[in-house]
């Protein structure tokens, strides 16, 4: 069965164009870019070409790009670099809805002597800007706010945040893992000091990421080793994947308009139809400021894992904010921070699209999902019909 893949915020298909660009770097151009010989040196030039392509996608200069192994490494590198280069400052400010790569790191740092402020969001997942502004201190070493939320797709006002932070001269890092490739990004527009991204979210392979570090930002490497990446990240380059990320940067740039028109309208159609056909279905998050590919819908009084597994029978792949799928017992911290009631949080499903999705796939989900929800609700002791009342 061909999967109906609607889980692109988890990972994406590597574009065939990307694979094709990568292949020669396994068996043909396998030299080490650090070598003195031409065989290796040529590879080094190709890496820099890939670097330039990725820089173009972000509006950055090539020398501002540091390749890493993943989004998490980029995030850790950014936070730790800011803390090490400001040893006197012991305060970190971030949001309550960050990806675990930031959230868990900050919680860890909170136990080791740093003070961390987690800025709340409102019911639609919008950042409390007053709270943010009022909690900046002279002791603040770094502010880290995601560009777009992985679960709801809600986009934070990065420009505004950058403005506030640059006035206070506080380092601004943004985890843009979900945004890069989906919405236009220009780091020059505002003072963004560091920006994390991950290859496999934009049709490059898993195992490659990058960190943008604005020229002039104090930096300290996370992986200490060789002189690779100008001493900013030790370790022999993941050549083929870097080439892949470069090619993928061109690929998503070329499809940016499509992502924000065709893909967006597929997402809107899916969401509208599902909410129309299924009673007590609610869209989570700020629909005015959202990634074009993401839809988070709560189906009240049923549980997310059950929905996912029943959709799985039809080859439909999505993910859920429910507790049961993750192995934790509480529903997603993002939905809880938004104050989504438990009735809805446990039954939240995230659909995330890519340019590879098609209209017939949408129609199939719109056909298959309503009976699944109905069936699970018929089994649920809380469901008393579509009046919305529960015991």
């Amino acid at each position, binding site marked *: 069965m061909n999967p109906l893949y609607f889980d692109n915020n988890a990972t994406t298909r590597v574009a065939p164009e990307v694979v094709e660009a990568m292949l020669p770097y396994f068996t043909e151009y396998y030299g080490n870019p650090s070598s003195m010989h031409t065989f290796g040196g040529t590879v080094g030039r190709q890496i820099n070409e890939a670097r330039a392509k990725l820089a173009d996608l972000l509006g950055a200069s090539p020398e501002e790009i540091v390749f890493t192994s993943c989004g998490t490494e980029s995030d850790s590198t950014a936070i730790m670099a800011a803390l090490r280069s400001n040893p006197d400052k*012991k*305060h970190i400010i971030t949001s309550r809805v960050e990806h675990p790569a930031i959230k868990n790191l900050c919680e860890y740092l909170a136990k080791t002597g740093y*003070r961390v*402020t987690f800025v709340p969001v409102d019911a639609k997942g919008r950042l409390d800007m007053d709270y943010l502004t*009022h*909690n*900046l*201190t002279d*002791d603040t070493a770094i502010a880290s706010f995601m560009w777009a939320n992985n679960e709801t797709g809600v986009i934070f006002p990065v420009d505004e945040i950058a403005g506030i932070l640059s006035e206070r001269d506080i380092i601004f890092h943004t985890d843009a893992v979900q945004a890069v490739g989906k919405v236009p990004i220009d780091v020059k527009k505002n003072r963004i000091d560091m920006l994390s991204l991950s290859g496999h979210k934009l049709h490059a392979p898993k195992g490659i990421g990058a960190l943008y570090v604005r020229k002039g930002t104090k930096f300290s490497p996370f992986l200490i080793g060789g002189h690779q990446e100008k001493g900013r990240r030790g370790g022999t380059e993941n050549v083929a994947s870097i080439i892949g990320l470069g090619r993928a940067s061109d690929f998503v740039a070329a499809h940016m308009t499509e992502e924000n028109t065709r893909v967006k309208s597929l997402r809107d159609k899916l969401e509208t139809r599902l909410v129309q056909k299924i009673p007590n279905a609610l869209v989570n998050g700020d629909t005015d400021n959202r990634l074009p590919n993401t839809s988070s819908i709560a189906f009240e*009084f*049923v*549980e*997310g*894992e*059950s929905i996912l*597994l*029943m959709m799985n*029978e039809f080859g439909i792949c999505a993910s859920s904010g*429910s*507790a*049961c*799928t993750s*192995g*934790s*017992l*509480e*529903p997603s911290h993002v939905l809880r921070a938004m104050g989504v009631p*438990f*009735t809805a949080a*446990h039954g939240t499903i995230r659909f995330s699209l890519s340019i590879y999705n098609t209209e017939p796939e949408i129609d199939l989900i719109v056909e298959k999902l309503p009976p699944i929800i109905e069936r699970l609700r*018929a*089994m*649920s*002791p*809380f469901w008393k019909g579509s009046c919305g009342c*529960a015991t």
Partner: protein
Amino acid sequence: MWEYTDKVKDHFLNPRNVGEIENADGVGEVGSLACGDALTLYFKLDDQQRIKEAKFKTFGCASAIASSSALTEMLIGKTLEEAETITNENIADYLGGLPREKMHCSVMGRDALEKAITCYRGSAEKKIEGEIVCECFGVTDIQIERAVRENHLTTIEQVTDYVKAGGGCGNCHEKIQEIINTVLGKEEAPARKKSPVLTNLQKIKLIEQTLEREIKPALNKDGGDIELIDVSGNVVQVRLRGTCATCKKSQITLKNYVEAKLRELVTPELMVEEVTL
């Protein structure tokens, strides 16, 4: 992705005995929407006092639905005395096993069965026995003790897998460990310190008193001062004044002194946050 057995998948995709029984002889309700799973179990007896019909309604994940379905199958044809002997392990075994993290689904089945039988026998619905240990999921010391004893659990993680306790904020981990130790006979049952349960109003008053009587005088000595801004849940928001406001060590004061003092004298869950303008 969970590794569910074929039998779990079968009972999830084709659940047996879904529904309610009107005029049931016994009904048992457990769980809640907040907890993420809930089960209502119904049974009806024939004239030989055997269970002739058992039905369920479940809100929850695949293994919760499968455990409920399996339980109803296991019940039909049994006397109540026989049914009473069913353990959560039996339910899991019937399904060919459950992932470790999902064992609480089988415990939920067993709990619903017990409640339904109690309901039939007409003994007044038993009050929650024991003392709540895990506030997040409302699990009592007696429930934890029983799960530890019956399933030979040795770690907090296992307790969470079986009865959910400790799976939320984590504040109760110490207490859970004490219970495990007691059951395993490692230690004499510790004299449980009864930390008083405070109402919001009592808590806020106590925080105010502690700030006025203990903390302010100490800070005043160094020319500093502190003001209470708000209390929301267990987060105490304060503003530092006087020399504290400009002191580089104020964060240390806040955590190591103010928070520690409030935790000691009010309740150990408190967190202190500074509000700056």
